[in-house]
């Protein structure tokens, strides 16, 4: 007798129903050929079945096999099948056997967050493999993993991983609660989970780190943070985070103290430049040219002489072009991407200025803004900072330098007001070891 609940599945061609007969008794095996590894099914089911003298003997085999469970309820069958189980029907009893073929369990090469001298491999797209990668690098009995299924339809497997001794209990219970409350059909990536568990819709700065690097993950685990692994994406989510985490690259741990501090300083300078430079350009060109030296003022005026539009329109044209270029080269396939940058670079660098659309100083401003934006190591923060310059430009074109200063002040206030799971956000460290591991003081 075949279970009624299987009828909907029959429409798919990759749904297999095999009837096995060894001359003594019969079993039915149901599985999705796309989800299951046939080798496992052969090894775990077909071979024991062939040598089993009776149905009872085979029942013992099934019971002794690992990960083989009796399904109490027929309604559970489709769910079990869709999660990569093979279901065995033996005398009206249903057994499920985990036989899923892992989708993509090879660690990928780190592309979104590269280091020069650190580990080169990133996580894979399989959460089990990722958990294994973490356990291998963090062999501590206190490392705890809790499994969750996220998404009403997708039922995405995910693991909450933390060091039981070091974790902040308050943060943990908050996060567990929020993960349980997730109400979405599909859950696909860490950044999405971040959006889903943030209450406010208008979210600007990231307050959780999304990373693809196992080394960053275990470093954060050892600092008492919580990691969320999600099946199907090589990116994991790390909670809680402070602003400084988004400015630190893994190279900071691998380089010497002086080099590290210099690089961090460089990033903060880049952060400041990418946020304020376009706004400062507008403010200086349109409101306060007296703050520059007279020699530069005159050459700036000279370079702008051919531009008929007010400075903020010039800035918006140029920034639109550069943002479009960045987005395009991000989305385009790698082979076309280089064409886009070449064409775009040529047009932006030369023609726009010669056509009298923008001044040559504006070209420098644009390139400085684009390049210094890439200094920020975590992409989520880099995106957030990209957005920050527009309100500043707006304020600059209304109020000049006073507007820029006020805008920066407001951004600092906003960041200072943020919390990441109850922890203050706009600070250097969460009472943890410094990323370098050398710093004294912050630890107990």
């Amino acid at each position, binding site marked *: 007798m075949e279970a009624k609940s299987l009828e909907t599945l029959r429409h798919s061609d990759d749904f297999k129903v095999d009837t096995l007969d060894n001359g003594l008794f019969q079993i039915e095996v149901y599985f999705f050929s796309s989800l299951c590894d046939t080798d496992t099914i052969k090894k775990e089911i077909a071979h024991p079945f062939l040598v089993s003298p009776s149905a009872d003997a085979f029942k013992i085999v099934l019971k002794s096999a690992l990960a083989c469970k009796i399904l109490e309820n027929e309604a559970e069958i489709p769910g079990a099948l869709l999660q990569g189980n093979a279901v065995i029907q033996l005398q009206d009893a249903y057994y499920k056997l985990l036989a899923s073929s892992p989708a993509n369990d090879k660690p990928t090469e780190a592309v979104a967050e590269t280091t020069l001298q650190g580990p080169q491999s990133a996580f894979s797209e399989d959460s089990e493999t990722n958990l294994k990668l973490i356990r291998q690098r963090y062999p501590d009995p206190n490392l705890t993993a809790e499994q969750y299924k996220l998404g009403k339809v997708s039922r995405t497997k995910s693991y909450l991983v933390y060091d039981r001794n070091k974790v902040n209990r308050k943060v943990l219970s908050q996060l567990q609660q929020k993960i349980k409350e997730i109400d979405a059909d599909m859950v696909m990536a860490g950044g999405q989970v971040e959006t889903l568990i943030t209450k406010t819709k208008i979210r600007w700065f990231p307050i959780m780190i999304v990373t693809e690097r196992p080394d960053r993950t275990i470093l954060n685990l050892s600092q008492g943070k919580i990691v969320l692994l999600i099946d199907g994406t090589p990116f994991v989510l790390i909670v809680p985070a402070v602003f400084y985490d988004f400015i630190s690259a893994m190279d900071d741990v691998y380089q010497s103290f002086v080099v590290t501090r210099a690089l961090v300083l460089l990033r903060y300078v880049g952060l400041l430049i990418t946020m304020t430079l376009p706004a400062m350009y507008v403010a200086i060109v*349109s409101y306060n040219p*007296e703050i520059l030296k007279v020699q530069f003022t005159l050459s700036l005026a000279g370079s702008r002489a051919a531009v008929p539009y007010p400075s903020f329109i010039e800035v918006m044209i140029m920034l639109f072009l550069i943002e479009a270029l960045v987005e395009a080269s991000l989305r385009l396939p790698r082979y076309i991407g280089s064409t886009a940058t070449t064409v775009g670079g040529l047009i932006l660098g030369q023609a726009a200025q010669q056509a009298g659309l923008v001044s040559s100083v504006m070209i420098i401003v644009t390139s400085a803004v684009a390049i210094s934006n890439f200094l920020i190591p975590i992409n989520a923060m880099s995106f957030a900072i990209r957005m920050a310059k527009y309100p500043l430009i*707006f304020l600059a074109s209304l109020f000049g330098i006073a507007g820029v200063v006020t805008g920066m002040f407001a951004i600092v206030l906003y960041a200072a007001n943020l919390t990441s799971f109850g922890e203050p956000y706009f600070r250097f460290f969460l009472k943890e070891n410094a990323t370098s591991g050398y710093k004294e003081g912050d630890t107990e």
Partner: protein
Amino acid sequence: MRKILLSLVAAVSLLLGSGCGLKDIDKRFFVIVVGIDKGDSSLFKVTLKLAIPSPRTEPGEAKFQTISQEADSIAEAVRLMKSKVDKEFDFGQAKDIVIGKSFADTHEIGHSLDFFFRRRDIQEIANVSIGEPDAATVINAKPLSERLPGNSLILAFSDEGTESPYIIKTPLFDYYRRIFDLGKDPYLPIIRALEETFVINRVAILKTNYKRLELNPDETAALNQLARGYKRFVIKSPPNEPRLTFSSTRLKSTYKILTPKNGDPVIRFHIRVDVEAEESEEKLFEKNWHDLERLAATQLKDQYLELLTKLQKHGVDPIGFGIRYRATRHEKSKEYENWRKIYPNVRFDIRVAVHFRGTGIIK
């Protein structure tokens, strides 16, 4: 949502309307130098040197435009001049204010410059000077090396370009302070315009906003050393001695005003100078260096004494003895009055210690 959208639209349209504050850099005429002369029919003749910016800057290619206007006040002249140009005047880069010699010789200067003290867009870093023969000539002079209009004047006064012991600069704020402080008199450098360059090597001393006297180049250098501690200058040997020139590398000068109960008031200078030989007709290494030091010290002492006596004779005090006197005495409101009585009788006691640091040549 609609509210946000509406306010956004309003904001953008406000932006496009561009209010009064927003004026792009290419819609402004940068006034680099302001000249003030005696007008033919009115009190002032104001001349502005307006920079014409160009994307390419080549030496000698500085483009500028000068416009003049006569009026009874500077503000009025500027207003009238606005109708002669196509862009808004921007005084934010006005680095030099030149007062014509004919005006400076005959008119009160301090309050005539009131316009510049009050306008917020005139930078407080502007330098004030006197132009010879008049301000318009100085403004119209076109040095061959200039890449940007007015640049050579700016460089001359900013210590970025040439460094000369004969150039004394007077920033506007310093000038303003000296006008109102009791016991410190203002001085103004004199720029003489030649066809393709300037000569700035003299200084005029003022008292109660009127020009009192001009110093010659040597006296100007001495004043520069005493009043501003300018340390790079040369000391020449007396005329009948073999030619020998020292250059100083360090200068430290302090003074005290001594008013003993019974005796004459004395201003005692202690000046320490380090020198090196810069030019000499004789071999110096074997000579007695103490003799050389004494020679230089006498030269300096004579020079300083001559200058101080001249200033005293004319009743001017650019070094600020008066303000020092007022700062170190407590005679209630009478300090300045007392000082004015003392100053004509004060004796200068100058003690120069010269240290010879080397002959400048490896033996």
